């Protein structure tokens, strides 16, 4: 009985969390939407589905991160506004809560990122059969195929942070 109660409580906790009651700060997402995120995950039971989220951090000149909030990527297409012309740190997390085993796991793909004013960024996010992929493509204002943005590790940041290139 004790185990059943614990399990029921855990299920309720996860359900509440998925309903947006987790207490984690939500990214305000009030800026011009310069990121178009296309996501694809293997869908299963709603309770066992891999959840995808984007955590946004501000990067200051000392390379310190300030958490700005999380965006739950729960739609196939979503738009997000990231401040242009300054560095942010994007953390795409795929999490897999297991209710029956009481274990959980997550994996993430992270990068320093500075959008250029006027540019759009097409981000493809997928998690299929335990293989995940995040690709960022920069689309210039005049359109076209654009270019792929290389991921940049936070360890590349050395204070005072000066960008070696205008964008990426």
């Amino acid at each position, binding site marked *: 009985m*004790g*185990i059943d109660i*614990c399990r029921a409580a855990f299920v309720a906790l996860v359900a509440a969390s998925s309903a947006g009651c987790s207490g984690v700060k939500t990214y305000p997402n009030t800026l011009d939407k310069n990121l178009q995120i296309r996501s694809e995950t293997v869908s299963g039971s709603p309770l066992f589905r891999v959840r995808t989220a984007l955590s946004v951090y501000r990067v200051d000149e000392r390379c310190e991160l300030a958490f700005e909030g999380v965006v739950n990527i729960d739609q196939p297409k979503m738009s997000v506004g990231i401040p242009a012309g300054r560095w942010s740190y994007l953390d795409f997390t*795929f999490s*897999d809560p297991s209710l029956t*085993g*009481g*274990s*959980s*796991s*997550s*994996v993430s*793909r992270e990068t320093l990122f500075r959008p250029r004013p006027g540019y759009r960024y097409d981000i493809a996010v*997928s*998690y*299929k*059969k*335990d*293989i*995940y*992929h995040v*690709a960022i493509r920069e689309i210039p204002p005049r359109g076209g195929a654009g270019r792929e943005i290389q*991921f940049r590790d936070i360890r590349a940041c050395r204070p005072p942070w000066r960008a070696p290139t205008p964008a990426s």
Partner: protein
Amino acid sequence: MKNRALAALMAAAFVAGCAGKMPMNAEEFRKAAPGAFLMKSESYEVNRPLRQVAAAFQKRAPECLSGRVRMTEQSARSSSVVVTTYKPTVVVGSGRAELHLQRRHDQGVVKVYDEPPDGHYILVVDAYPAGSGRTRIQLIGPSKGHDVIYRAINGWATGENLGCPDLTKIG
């Protein structure tokens, strides 16, 4: 829990098959692993030249196979945490591209045997030119529980999928 049990079993079986000594480098692993219990050796060809396969290994392995994995196991009475660090190495020569992967348990698993500072070798993949723009992939690694890594490496080699394996799914 399953991950830890399998990792411990594989390590014990591997050491048993290697006369009580863990391979300390990739070459020792190549010689010892194919005959060890719960290890396998397989090869296949991909329709890409070695240069492209090597470039894919160089780009994807550091991005996808480096890092720490933290697993939490919880039951009604206890919980445990296993922290594991993975380190890939890619070596590209004129006639071969190599991808090595090492694993070190930093927390939650007792180390019984001496191993290299970056952890024991869990797989070695060698790519050789196979003529006509093709490449032969020779893979040595665990026969159980690591399919997600093999599928990812196959995707990089063929160029059909550049995704990263979810290292929490190993085992």
